[in-house]
C-alpha cells in the first residue's frame, strides 16, 4: 500500500472507532477516490477538456440487528463524526432484521492477491488531444459519406478503493481505466446514421490504437446507412457480442440474491436445473490479471473465488451477498456489488462468419434499444437494429424493428456460440445464435 492508501486506512479506522463510540455493535466503511482527465475533439479541434476528482466515504452501522447508513465527501474528523451520527440515528428507527449484519469474519480476504489492475498512464491533456484528434480524423476521412461527427474522446482515470469493517479487516487496491472512443455520423440522401466504437483497458498499452477505433467507428456507421424495415415474421437471430453480453446480464440479474428472495426473478429455484444447452458453460474468474472486471474481494470484504456458474448448461450457483445468502439459507458467493469477469464458452466455438453461414437466413442484431425486459416473467421485447442475412451473408442494414421472446426459452434455445467475445466487458461472450424469435416490423 502506498502513502495515500495508508492515509485512507486511517480515515476508515477513525470512522469505525467513532461508530463503536456512538454505540454501533458492528460497522463497515468504504472509501472510493478517483481522479481523471477526459479530452474530446470534434471537427478537428478540442471541444471539451474535463478534469475530475471525486472522493466519497460510505458507512453502514449495525445496532444489533438494526441498520443505518450515510455518506460524506468530507473526510475531516468532524464530518466523519456527523456521518456516523446520521447512520446511527437511522439505525435507531429501522426495524430489527434477523438477516442483517456483516459477512462472516472467516470469509474476509485476510490475504488477497495483487491483480495488477493499476497502470498509470502519464497522459497530459496535449497528448490526449493528439490521440483524440487522430482518432476522429481517421474516422472522418474514412469515406466521403461520413459527414459529421460527435467527436472522439480519450480518457484516463485512476482511483483507489478501500474497505474496512469491525471484524478488523481492512483492504484496498488501486485501479486504472483508460479508454479511447469515437462516434461519427454518416449521410446518404436524406437519412443520417450514427454509430461508435471504443477501446477500454486497465493498462493503456492494451488499448487498441486510436486509428483502429476511428476506422471501426466509421465502418459501423457506414454499414447502417439506408437501413430498411422488415416484414413481421419468425426468424433465427444472431446476437453480436455487444448485444449478447446484455442477454447474459438479464440472466445474472435473475440469479442474483435480491431478485431471488424478493421473488422478482423468472429463475426462482433454478439451482441444478438445465437452463442452457448441455455444451454451454459460464465461469466466473475474479482474479484475471489486469482485467476490467477483476476484484480481490467484494464490497463486504469477502474473498472472491473462481467458480463454474453454469456447467454443461446446468446452473451450479447463485450470485449472492451475505444478506441475500442468509435470506436464502445459503453461503455468500463473494458477489456483494456484482459479478467479476463472467466468461461464457461452448464445447465448440466458431467465428461470426461461420455462425452467419449456419444461420443461413435471419437477423444479425448489433444494437438493442429500450428497457422492454420483464424480469419476473422473463418476457423480452426490445427495439433492435442490425442486418438481414440470406445465404449466410449480410444483405442489407435493418432498423425500426423489435425482437421478442421469453428469456427462459431463449437461453435454452441457444444453437451455437462464437469465438469473438468482447473482452472490454465484465460479461464476456461471443456471438450467439438463437432459433426463431418474433420480429415485428411492417
Amino acid at each position, binding site marked *: 500500500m502506498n502513502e495515500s492508501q495508508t492515509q485512507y486506512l486511517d480515515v476508515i479506522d477513525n470512522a469505525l472507532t467513532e461508530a463503536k463510540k456512538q454505540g454501533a455493535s458492528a460497522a463497515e466503511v468504504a472509501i472510493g477516490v478517483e481522479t481523471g482527465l477526459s479530452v474530446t475533439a*470534434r471537427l478537428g*479541434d*478540442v*471541444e*471539451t*477538456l*474535463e*478534469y*475530475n*476528482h*471525486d472522493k466519497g466515504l460510505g458507512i453502514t452501522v449495525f445496532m444489533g440487528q438494526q441498520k*443505518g*447508513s450515510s*455518506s*460524506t*465527501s*468530507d473526510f475531516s474528523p468532524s464530518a466523519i463524526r456527523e456521518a456516523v451520527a*446520521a*447512520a446511527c440515528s*437511522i*439505525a*435507531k*428507527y*429501522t*426495524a*430489527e*432484521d434477523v438477516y442483517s449484519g456483516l459477512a462472516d469474519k472467516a470469509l474476509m480476504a485476510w490475504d488477497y492477491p495483487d491483480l495488477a489492475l493499476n497502470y498509470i498512464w502519464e497522459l497530459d491533456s496535449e497528448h490526449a488531444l493528439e490521440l483524440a484528434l487522430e482518432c476522429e480524423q481517421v474516422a472522418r476521412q474514412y469515406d466521403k459519406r461520413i459527414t*459529421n461527427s*460527435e467527436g472522439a474522446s480519450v480518457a484516463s482515470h485512476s482511483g483507489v478503493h478501500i474497505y474496512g469493517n469491525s471484524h478488523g479487516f481492512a483492504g484496498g487496491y488501486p485501479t486504472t481505466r483508460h479508454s479511447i472512443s469515437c462516434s461519427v*455520423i454518416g449521410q446518404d440522401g436524406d437519412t*443520417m*446514421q*450514427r454509430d461508435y466504437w471504443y477501446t477500454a483497458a486497465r493498462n493503456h498499452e492494451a488499448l487498441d490504437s486510436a486509428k483502429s477505433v476511428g476506422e471501426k467507428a466509421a465502418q459501423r456507421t457506414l454499414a*447502417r446507412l439506408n*437501413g430498411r424495415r422488415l416484414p*413481421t415474421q*419468425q426468424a433465427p437471430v444472431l446476437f453480436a457480442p455487444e448485444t449478447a453480453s446484455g442477454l447474459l446480464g438479464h440472466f445474472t440479474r435473475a440469479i442474483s440474491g435480491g431478485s431471488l428472495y*424478493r*421473488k*422478482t426473478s423468472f429463475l426462482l429455484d433454478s439451482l441444478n436445473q438445465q437452463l442452457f444447452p448441455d455444451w454451454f458453460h459460464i465461469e466466473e474468474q475474479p482474479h484475471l490479471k489486469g482485467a476490467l472486471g477483476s476484484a480481490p474481494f467484494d464490497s463486504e470484504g469477502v474473498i472472491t473465488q473462481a467458480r463454474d456458474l453454469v456447467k454443461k448448461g446446468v446452473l451450479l450457483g447463485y450470485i449472492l451477498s451475505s444478506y441475500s445468502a442468509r435470506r436464502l439459507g445459503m453461503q455468500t458467493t463473494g458477489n456483494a456489488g456484482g459479478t467479476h469477469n463472467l466468461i461464457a464458452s461452448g464445447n465448440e466455438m466458431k467465428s461470426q462468419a461461420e455462425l452467419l453461414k449456419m444461420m443461413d437466413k435471419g437477423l444479425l442484431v448489433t444494437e438493442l*434499444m*429500450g*428497457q*422492454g425486459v420483464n424480469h419476473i*416473467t422473463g*418476457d423480452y*421485447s*426490445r*427495439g433492435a*437494429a442490425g442486418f438481414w442475412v440470406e445465404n449466410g451473408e449480410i444483405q442489407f442494414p435493418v*432498423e*425500426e*424493428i*423489435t*425482437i*421478442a421472446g421469453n428469456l427462459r426459452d431463449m437461453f435454452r434455445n441457444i444453437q451455437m456460440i462464437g469465438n469473438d467475445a468482447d473482452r472490454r466487458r465484465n460479461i464476456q461472450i461471443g456471438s450467439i445464435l438463437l432459433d426463431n424469435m*418474433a420480429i*415485428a*416490423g*411492417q
Partner: protein
Amino acid sequence: MSGGIFLVLIIESFSDYFMNSEIEIAKQLIFSPAGLGESDLSNVLNHLMTQRGVDNADLYFEVSRYESWSLEDSIVKDGTFGIEKGVGVRAMSGEKTGFAYSDEITLPALEQAAKTVRAISRQGQQGRLNAWVSNGAGHDLYLPIDPVSTLNEREKIRLLESVDSEARRLDTRIQQVMVSLVGTQEVMLVAASDGTLAADVRPLVRMSVSVVAEQDGRREQGSSGGGGRVAYGYFLDNDRALGFAREAVRQALLNLEAVEAPAGTMDVVLGPGWPGVLLHEAIGHGLEGDFNRKGSSAFAGRIGEKVASPLCTVVDDGTLAERRGSLRVDDEGVPTQCTTLIENGILKGYLQDKMNARLMGVAPTGNGRRESYAHLPLPRMTNTYMLPGPHTPEEIIASIDKGLYAVNFGGGQVDITSGKFVFSASEAYLIEGGKVTRPVKGATLIGNGPDVLTRVSMVGNDLELDEGVGTCGKEGQSVPVGVGQPTLRIDGLTIGGTSM
C-alpha cells in the same frame, strides 16, 4: 392533474415572505462556512476572463442533502443519509469548454480549478466580466424547504408501513411489497461572467411502490409512485400514498390475466399522462439545442417545417408549480419558461442552454441543466407535454376496429440521429370492434421520431401530467423531468409482441 389545491394556496400566501430568500439561504449555506464572498467570485471569474480567448465562464456551487428509506418484508430495513457539496468551474471559448470541479468549497480549491480550466484557450480576444445582475426574476414554484425535516423519522416509517399494509390488505395474492421514500434538498448558486448571480433551493420527494402478485404459480409485478417539489406531507394528503399502493396492486393483478401481445403494425391509442414519454423520446431529445447546433439530430434545420399533424401542439414548461421537472431558474441562472416546440404541427423551437443559444444566435430558454456541480450543463427537458384536443377518450377508442390501447409505460430510448425511438408498455389492452377487451403483456413500441406525430389522427380533451417519477439520462447525467399528454390516436405504430 394531480397537485392539490391546498399546497397551491400555501405557496400564494407565503410567496412574498420567501421572495428572494433563495439567494440568502444559498449564501448562508455555501459561502459562510468557507468565508467566501461575492468579491472572491468576481476575482476568480476575472482571473479566468483575462486568459486570451476565454469568452464566458461560470462557477456553480452546490450543497445537497438526501435521504432514503426502504421497506420490504413489511419492515423498514434500511435508511441512508448523505450530504454532497462542491463547486464546478467552467471556461468557454467559442465551441470549446474547459471544466474542473472540487468537492471542497474553499478559495484555494476554486483558484486551482480556475487555473486548470484556463488551458482550454490560448488565442483570441480577451473577454470581460460584467457587473453582477442579482437575479430576482425566477418563478416562485415551490417553497425553499428541506423535505428531509418535514416529517419525523417515526412518521416516515409509519408512512411506509401504511403503504405495505394497504397493499397486502387489498388482495391475498400480494406476496411482496417494496416501498421506498426519497427526499432531497438541492441548494445551488451560480455566478457567471455575463453578470448572472442566481440561486435556487430545490426540494424534491419521491415514493416508489412495487408489488409482486402470485396466482397458480404465475407471478407478476405492478408498480406505482409519485412525488414533486413538495414536503413529505404530499404523500399523506388525500391518502395519496395509499393510492400508489392500490394502483400497484391493480396493475399486478391485471398482469396475472394478460395474454401475449400482438406483433406487427397496428393503430394505437395512448392513454393520458405518463405515456407522454412518447413525446420525451420521439420529439424532446431531438429538439435539444446541442444536437441541432451540431447537426446530429434528425430535426436539425427543420424549424418552420411540418413535423406533426395539425392537431399537435407540444411544449416544454419548467414553470409548473411543484412539478418534478420544474425549476425556478435553470442551472445557469436563467429563469425557466414555457417553450413551444411544435405548434399545430409546425416545428417552432429548440431547447437551449446558454452556450448552444449563443452559438446558434438565439436566446436561452432556461433548459441548461446539470446533474451536479461535477457535471457540465447541457440542454435538457423540464416538463414536456402535448396540449389537449377536441376528442373524448371514449370516441378515440371507439374509432378503432383492431388495435392496442396502451396506458402505462416503463421507460424509453431514442437515437436522435436516425430518429428511431422505443418506449415499453407495461399496461396495455387489445381494442376489438371499438371496445377495450383483453389485457396484454408488456411490449416495446418502436417508431421514427420525425414521422410519428404526423400520424396522430385524434387528440383527447383529457390532458394529464405524470405522477412525478421520471428521470432522464443523457451523456451519463440524470435529471428529474415530467411528461404529459391527453389520450392520443396514432395510426400504424410497430408493436413488439410475440403473437402473430
